[in-house]
Every structure is written in structure tokens, then in C-alpha cells.
């Protein structure tokens, strides 16, 4: 699905990312972790095509070299970290915006059906007629999540890459779990997801692969049990961290003493 080979990214002559190598397959859920300024959002910028790598090779299974921006957008969607919208759209209208790259490719009924499905998956179907600007930050985040899902046909059709920038940052516990379970289910059905997360325990619980970034470089890449270790986490976050292996049978739990 996605291949990064010794990729670097520079901003104002400063290297903010890399060299980084990473390979992701369809159906994998990759969580990107790291301290503030470690390069997590820069990695998403690269993957979403907002920035081009300074060196190295970045390739997608759905891009053949002659693709247009619109064709890429049919396979790749980004849920941004900030959700402000200056104009007074309804929730349904915002989610419908996700259908923009598919305009003319299916009829209005299918657009509506996929919009409804995305709204239902994010738990926002009952809010579909509400004004977006009047929602709380967490509700707006769920609407943006639904928009990204609508853009990817809710995972239908294969070769879909979902990029999420802190999707759970403003959600309460219930919806953190709902959104993460939804991502897990979509990945089990073949979607590929890269999510920047701050909650290490959510990453440990749901992700297949962890990319632990430290000052733009990969401190570790691998399964949660391999990467979420006390020395690595303590080094990356510059904080003493305890990893409890005996709380859950199949995954580590991270605590701060």
C-alpha cells in the first residue's frame, strides 16, 4: 500500500524528518507516536501529498505516476488536527464535502448512502442536520472523521489510505473507543490507516505497527510489544515510564509513576 525508502523532509533549510523507511500493507493500522515537534504531523504532510520529500522514495499502491490530484484523493484522505470552518454548513454538508473527488462517478443516491454510513460510523447520524459551527470540538472532530471516511467510500473498493492527525485528541473516553474500534474494523476489512496519536495505550490496544519518532528520526518501528518498552519510551519522552505487562494478556500498558 505504502512504501517509504530513506525519505527526508526539509522546512526552511532545516531537516524535520528522516531519513525514514517504512512499509505498510493493506489492512494495517499504523500509529505514529512521539514527543511534540518530533515530526509526526510532518510525516502525515508527506503521506498526504502536502509536502514533497527532499530525498528518498515515496510510493503508493494506488498511484501510477500519471495520476491526478483528484485520482489520488479518491484513495487517500486526511483528517486534519484542527477543525475550524468559517461558514455555517450543516453536519451532513461537511461530510458530503468528502465526496468531492468522486463527483460524477456515482449518482446522488450513492453519495447520500455513503455519507449516511460515514455519519453512522462516527456516531454523528443524529446530528446530521445540526450546524457544524455550533458543535463542540469533539463533535466537530467526529464530523471530520466522517468526512474522511466518506472520501474513502467508508473503506469499500480496496486501496484506501486513511491519514488521521490526532483523531482522539478532543474526544471523551466513549468516543475515543468508538473511533478506534471503527478504525480497527475498517482495517480488518482492508483499509490502511496511519494515525498520529498521543495516547500510547490506545495505540498499544489497537495498532498493528508503531512508529516511534524522535527528533524526526524513527527511534523504533515494529509491533507494540517490541516498540513500547521502558528504555525507548523514557528516552523519547524524556520521562520515567513504566510498562506493565501483566495487566492485559496480549499488550503492554504504559503508566507514569
Amino acid at each position: 500500500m505504502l512504501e517509504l525508502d530513506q525519505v527526508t523532509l526539509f522546512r526552511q533549510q532545516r531537516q524535520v524528518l528522516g531519513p525514514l523507511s517504512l512499509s505498510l500493507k493493506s489492512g494495517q493500522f499504523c500509529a505514529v507516536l512521539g514527543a511534540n515537534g518530533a515530526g509526526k504531523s510532518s510525516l502525515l504532510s508527506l503521506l498526504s501529498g502536502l509536502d514533497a520529500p527532499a530525498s528518498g522514495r515515496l510510493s503508493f499502491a494506488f498511484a501510477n505516476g500519471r495520476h491526478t490530484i483528484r485520482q489520488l484523493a479518491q484513495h487517500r484522505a486526511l483528517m486534519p488536527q484542527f477543525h475550524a470552518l468559517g461558514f455555517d454548513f450543516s453536519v451532513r454538508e461537511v461530510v458530503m464535502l468528502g465526496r468531492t473527488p468522486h463527483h460524477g462517478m456515482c449518482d446522488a443516491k450513492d453519495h447520500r448512502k455513503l455519507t449516511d454510513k460515514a455519519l453512522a460510523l462516527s456516531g454523528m447520524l443524529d446530528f446530521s442536520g445540526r450546524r457544524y459551527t455550533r458543535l463542540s470540538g469533539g463533535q466537530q472532530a467526529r464530523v471530520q472523521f466522517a468526512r474522511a471516511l466518506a472520501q474513502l467510500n467508508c473503506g469499500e473498493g480496496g486501496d484506501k489510505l486513511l491519514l488521521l492527525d490526532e483523531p482522539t485528541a478532543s474526544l471523551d473516553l466513549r468516543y475515543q473507543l468508538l473511533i478506534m474500534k471503527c478504525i480497527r474494523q475498517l482495517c480488518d476489512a482492508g483499509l490502511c490507516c496511519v494515525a498520529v496519536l498521543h495516547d500510547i495505550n490506545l495505540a498499544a490496544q489497537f495498532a498493528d505497527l508503531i512508529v516511534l519518532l524522535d527528533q524526526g528520526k524513527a527511534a523504533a518501528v515494529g509491533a507494540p510489544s517490541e516498540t513500547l518498552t521502558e528504555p525507548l519510551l523514557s528516552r523519547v519522552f524524556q520521562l520515567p515510564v513504566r510498562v506493565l505487562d501483566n495487566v492485559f494478556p496480549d499488550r503492554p500498558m504504559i503508566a507514569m509513576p
Partner: protein
Amino acid sequence: MIVRDYHSTKIYGILALLLLTLSVTALSSGPLAGNIISLVDALVSEDASILAATFWQLRLPRVVLALMVGSALAVAGVTMQAIFRNPLAEPGLTGSSSGAALAAATVIVLAPYENHAAMLPLVAFLGALLATLLVLSFPVSAGDQMASLLLLGIAINAVSSAGLGFLSFVADDFALRSLTFWQFGSLGKASWEDLAWATAIASPALGWLLCQGRVLNGLLLGERDAHCLGIDVHRFKVCALLACSVCVGTAVACAGIIGFVGLVVPHLLRLVVGPDHTRLLPASLLAAPALVLAADTLARTVVSPAELPIGILTALLGGPFFIYLLLQRSRTSA
């Protein structure tokens, strides 16, 4: 809870009816008014009457010009507000209307007694295009492109206003009257010749902008998100700003600067049809000509046989509305 249910078709119908009524009113009112029946009589009669000549040569081109100017200004206004993601943006934001007026004023003041009726619209149109090209060609970094475009537009508007002020200062009485036309606008110079070239130039730009509703909706999410929706943001912005400049340049070239139409109409319509540009653009195509027609009919009848510059009336309506908007915004943010 369902907040809104837009009855777009019904609203389009009402707006079309309003436009039709205002067009008929405009066609049948004036110093030679009579009533609609005497106008129809004059038109169907085989004898050439003054009323029929007035209709064909003065009133009809004036109404058609109002339709053209209104649509051009409103569609450009809607587009500018979406591109700048700011509901307070107006069509002349990148300096196109003041650039047009400055170019026309320069010709008027430098050669006040020449007959430049044919040349002025062309000069004004080129002035508009030049101002926008100047703004677009300025090297700015991608990160703060919109803020830079906005500031450059403000700078060009300020320089053009200063230029117009200076030209008014050095102009003689004769040139000063012509300058008033460009600064406050008038549909009084409508002619079939001007309409022919103006429509030929503005129609492709207007038609293209009318088809961009979905792209404009996407832009409202911000440039990064719009890119992720498959929109080539930079290319679209350049094309859209040039198309707006063509629309505004043509409108100013034919009718001078008519303020507030491009600002007020999109706002009014958002209250009725919502912010979705696929509905807003066609609605503004009906509503803005109606506003321009109403203002023009008032402008030429309230002090008849003299004529008020139409820009004064639209500003008189638009100014208080603008203050109302600012009050609403501060109330919402409080």
C-alpha cells in the same frame, strides 16, 4: 434536530419572479412612462414612436446591462469570499475595480475633450486585469499566500484611491463629471455595442465560475484540506482570481464602480439558501441583477429627469447592512 431545510427550487422561482417583475418595472418606467399597456401598444404599432425608440435604444440595453453587471459582481463576490474564506471579502478585493476606475480616470483627465467613449471601457477592463496580474505575480511564500494576496490587494486599492483623488484634484469641471461616473457607477451609458463585447468577454468567465460550486465548497475547509480533497488549489486560485477580474473589469468598464452588490448579495442569500456554493452561485445570478435593477430604477426615477449615480444607492443600502453584519459577528463571537 433539523435546523434548516432549504427549498432551493422555490427560492429560485421567487427570485426569478422578482427579477422578472423588476425588469418589467424598469422597462416601463421613466420620464416617458405612461404604463405597460401604452408601452406594448407602442412596440406593436408599426409607426416608429419615441416610446418604442426609448425602449429599444435606452431601456432594454440598460436592463440587460443591469443583469450582466449584477451577475458579474455577485458571482465574483461569492468566489472571492470562498477563496479568502472570509464573508467580508468583496469582488474588488484584489484591486480590480479600483484599477479599472484609475485607468479610465487617467484617460479622462489626460484627454478630457477627446471622444473616448469607445476606448474607455477597454482601458478600464485592462486596468482591472493589470491590477489582478500585479497582485498574482508578486512572489509570496505558499504558507502565507492568501494573507499576502489580501494585503497586496489592499495596497493596490489604496494607491488607486490616492491616484483617483489626485486626478479629481487636477481635473477640470468637465472631466470631473466623467470621473463621478467611474467612481459611483451608472447604467446610463448602456449601449448594444458595449453590451456585445462585454457579454462576449464576461460570459466564459462567468460560466466557468458558475460551475465551480463544489470546488469553492472544498476551499472553505482550508487550502491543505482542499488539496487532500483532490483540488489543485494554486491553479484554481489563479484561474478563479483572473475570472473574477474579468467579470469585475467588464462590469466596471460598462457601469463604473457599483459598490456593495458583490458583498451584500452573497450574505443575504446565505441566510436563505445556506453556504453551499452549488446553490449560492445560481441564486446570486438571479438576486444580484434584481438588486441592481431596483437600485437603477430608483436612481433614475427619484430625481427624474436627473439621475443619481447608482453606486450611491447601493452603498446607501449596503453600508447599514455591513454594519449590521459586523454587529452580528461581534454578538456571535461574544
